[in-house]
């Protein structure tokens, strides 16, 4: 029996049954035991019913994506087995609930074992069928050779609000599952013991974005519910009041971004979070924020488009909408976090950039990044280093000394940035408008002024620092270069590691800022590469096209595209590469 440094399991059942809570508790407990976790949830656009599953990967070392292979399936419905048994490793185990799974109707492939496990009945015996999830937790814990003790706290926290009796019952259910599994079989997949770890968090990209926002000084959020961004609104509705802040659910996205512009103008760090349809509706306002040089932050949790598209499936297809969306030409910055840690830290950064460059800043998340949960190492986050930089602001004293009745909010400057005054500042009064305007913000149709103001706004972006705009991993002079952004980071990384093991000279550029594009930084690597593979989850190769626009690499660039709503896997990337090289 092999000691494992990593295992994965899938829990599947009907949507609305609480499948996720199995993963939640497993993850919490195992995380505290020092393991690194990645939890991916596969769900569909309906409220109750329909198959849903949760993939949990548990490793001694950091994990950045769901595994392609599971050791264990906990099956509460047929689909869990039908869809996923081919992903079980040889020797893998299916524990199914005979109450809801008629196993004789399913052909089980060879080399794996399927075992009836009366989750519901056991739970019913203990008082409530709902606790079948807890029985499953116990079973998994036994199979992975984890001491049951560590689950105590996790269960307690989950059910604390419901009273001690419920906590006890649920603990009993976990124990029952644990014992029953031990009766059934030996510990099949013992996880290598992990030394005590530093402080950890386990949370989704959306959670990280919400926390990052608060850490980054966000005190105003206006949003409109939309999958998969709604969590952020819901989180901030709970969090912001603790800091005096306000979160508003608006009548639509047009109002949300307009309110954010109002709050940003008034000097408060303000944001909205939305997905595709919302981004489309916000296009006009993005231009206004650009023209009036108002700092705002917009999170786009990209999902399958166009139109309603595939609301519960991943896609990375809003690049155009974020980078060049809106009529006319307005400045903006687009950050693209690729891990939950980055999602958290990109928020303070986004607010700093927004106030420094006085323009809209997008944080381009995607459905997998936003909804998957990952372990974050507090030591990596270094939250104490977060600085609030409010950008150029005109001082009261300076205003007091000025002879101007109207503050020259849009005076032309070398770096394109003009110090802001905010409402309430004496003698800081000025006008802002989406119409082209002169230094005081009043409309002007003068051609020379037009050129000066357009150039001023464009110039600001030339100063955006590029130091963290890409991350590079792999061998230094890679011949094969993988380029990606967003949540595909884990899959690309895993693919690169596999290929490197096989001796290929592979490198990986992950683009962390999509606009202004760090073309020079990327060129460093593309120049040396013979084959460039741009991995993205969309159908037209939006990043690839962007790269081609900036760098003349048309002949050696190959887009590796996936747009079926399923996260790309490392093996899809490696087979694409193998066919090319």
């Amino acid at each position, binding site marked *: 029996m092999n000691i494992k440094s990593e295992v994965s399991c899938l829990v599947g059942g009907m949507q609305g049954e609480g499948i996720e809570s199995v993963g939640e508790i497993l993850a919490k407990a195992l995380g505290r035991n020092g393991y690194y976790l990645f939890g991916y949830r596969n769900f569909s656009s309906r409220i109750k019913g329909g198959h849903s599953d949760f993939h949990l990967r548990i490793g001694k070392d950091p994990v950045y994506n769901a595994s392609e292979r599971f050791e264990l399936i906990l099956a509460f419905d047929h689909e869990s087995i039908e869809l996923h048994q081919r992903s079980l490793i040889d020797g893998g185990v299916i524990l199914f609930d005979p109450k809801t799974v008629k196993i004789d109707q399913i052909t089980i492939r060879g080399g794996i074992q399927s075992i009836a496990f009366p989750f519901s009945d056991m739970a019913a015996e203990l008082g409530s069928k709902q606790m079948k999830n807890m029985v499953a937790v116990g079973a998994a814990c036994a199979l992975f050779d984890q001491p049951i003790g560590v689950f105590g706290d996790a269960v307690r926290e989950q059910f604390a609000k419901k009273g001690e009796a419920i906590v006890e019952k649920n603990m009993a259910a976990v124990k029952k599952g644990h014992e029953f599994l031990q009766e059934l079989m030996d510990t099949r997949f013992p996880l290598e013991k992990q030394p005590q770890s530093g402080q950890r*968090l386990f949370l989704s990209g959306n959670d990280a974005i919400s926390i990052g926002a608060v850490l980054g000084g966000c005190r105003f959020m206006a949003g409109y519910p939309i999958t998969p961004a709604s969590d952020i609104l819901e989180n901030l509705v709970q969090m912001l009041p603790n800091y005096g802040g306000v979160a508003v659910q608006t009548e639509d996205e047009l109002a949300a971004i307009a309110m954010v512009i109002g709050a940003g103008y008034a000097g408060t760090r303000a944001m909205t979070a939305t997905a595709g349809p919302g981004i489309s509706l916000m296009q006009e306002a993005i231009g206004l924020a650009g023209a009036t040089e108002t700092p705002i932050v917009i999170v786009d949790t990209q999902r399958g488009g166009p139109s309603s598209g595939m609301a519960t499936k991943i896609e990375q297809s809003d690049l155009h909408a974020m980078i060049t969306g809106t009529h006319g030409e307005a400045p903006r910055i687009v950050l693209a976090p690729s891990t939950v840690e980055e999602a958290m830290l990109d928020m303070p950064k986004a607010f700093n950039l927004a106030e420094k460059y006085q323009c809209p800043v997008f944080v381009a998340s995607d459905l997998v990044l936003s909804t998957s949960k990952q372990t974050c190492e507090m030591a990596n986050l270094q939250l104490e280093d977060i600085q609030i930089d409010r950008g150029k602001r005109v001082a009261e004293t300076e205003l007091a000394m000025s002879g101007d009745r109207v503050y020259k909010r849009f005076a032309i400057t070398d770096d394109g940035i003009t110090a802001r005054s905010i409402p309430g500042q004496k003698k800081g009064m000025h006008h*802002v408008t989406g119409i082209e305007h002169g230094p005081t913000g009043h409309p002007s149709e003068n051609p020379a002024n037009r050129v000066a103001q357009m150039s001023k706004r464009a110039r600001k972006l030339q100063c955006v620092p590029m130091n963290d705009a890409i991350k590079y991993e792999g061998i230094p002079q890679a011949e094969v270069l993988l380029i990606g952004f967003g949540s595909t980071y884990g899959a690309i990384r895993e693919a690169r590691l596999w290929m490197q093991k096989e001796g290929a000279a592979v490198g990986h550029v992950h683009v962390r800022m999509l606009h202004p594009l760090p073309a020079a930084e990327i060129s460093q690597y593309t120049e040396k590469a013979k084959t460039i593979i741009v991995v993205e989850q969309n159908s037209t190769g939006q990043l690839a096209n962007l790269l081609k626009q900036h760098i003349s690499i048309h002949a050696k660039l190959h887009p590796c595209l996936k747009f079926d709503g399923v996260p790309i896997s490392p093996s899809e990337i490696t087979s694409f590469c193998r066919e090319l090289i």
Partner: protein
Amino acid sequence: MATLHDYRMDITPNWCPGCGDFSVLAAIQKAAVNLNIEPENFVLQSGIGCSGRISGYLNVYGMHTMHGRSLAVAQGVKLANRDLTVVCAGGDGDGFGIGGNHFVHAARRNIDITYIVMDNQIYGLTKGQMSPTSPKGFLTKSSPEGNPESPISPLQLALSANASFIAQGFSGDIKHITSLIEQGIRHKGFAFINIFSPCVTFNKVFTYDFFKQNIVNLDDDPQYDSTDRTMAFDKVEQTDGFVKGLIYRKERMDFVDALPGRSGKENLSNQDLQLSADQVQNLLQRYM
């Protein structure tokens, strides 16, 4: 002490001579001075239209926003900094056409701002198309054979949207609208003031004369109870909307007061944003 001079901007409005919007501008300035609001604490949002240009014609923090979205911007400003006086102004097309939804929702949300519509029953800036308040049969550039739609009743719309302050005036009576604006600003909650503001260039029907002759003054009706929603609805119905005065007013809890705890209770724009170690700990607790 703020003076009219403080509120003046040295820019000649590009409105046509005789445009009703001049009086509205003057009334806003006068009301602000009467209420002794310092210009730096006065923020005026406007929409897009001839009327929308107003934000550039007085020396306050002026925001000329988007067509139809000024109310949403205004609410954002007020929520960010409750110490400011926030007045929002625009046209009938801006407010009841493209912006109709924000109007309805701002009314029910009841954030403490004042919304002034310069209602000229026409799209002025785009040169004379019909607006949502153009009456049926009205001849305009986009209805050369007569408007086929019934107009909107801004007052009834505001009533049904549960606005807590609703008034109507007429540009020709600058004293009256100044007083309405003062009351609106003083009202805690969303105050809506519709002002008939003749477009002398494109609207040859709803002229100064028309209003002088046809508008009913609520002050002349001693029976009128401005706290009775149904009576208000009926009055508008009976006068076909040509009525002036305080239509309805009832104080109700404003949005910020209904928010939990400290939420929005202080000016958010001058806070120290750096969290203490404790605060960070609290924030992360749930995810540990």
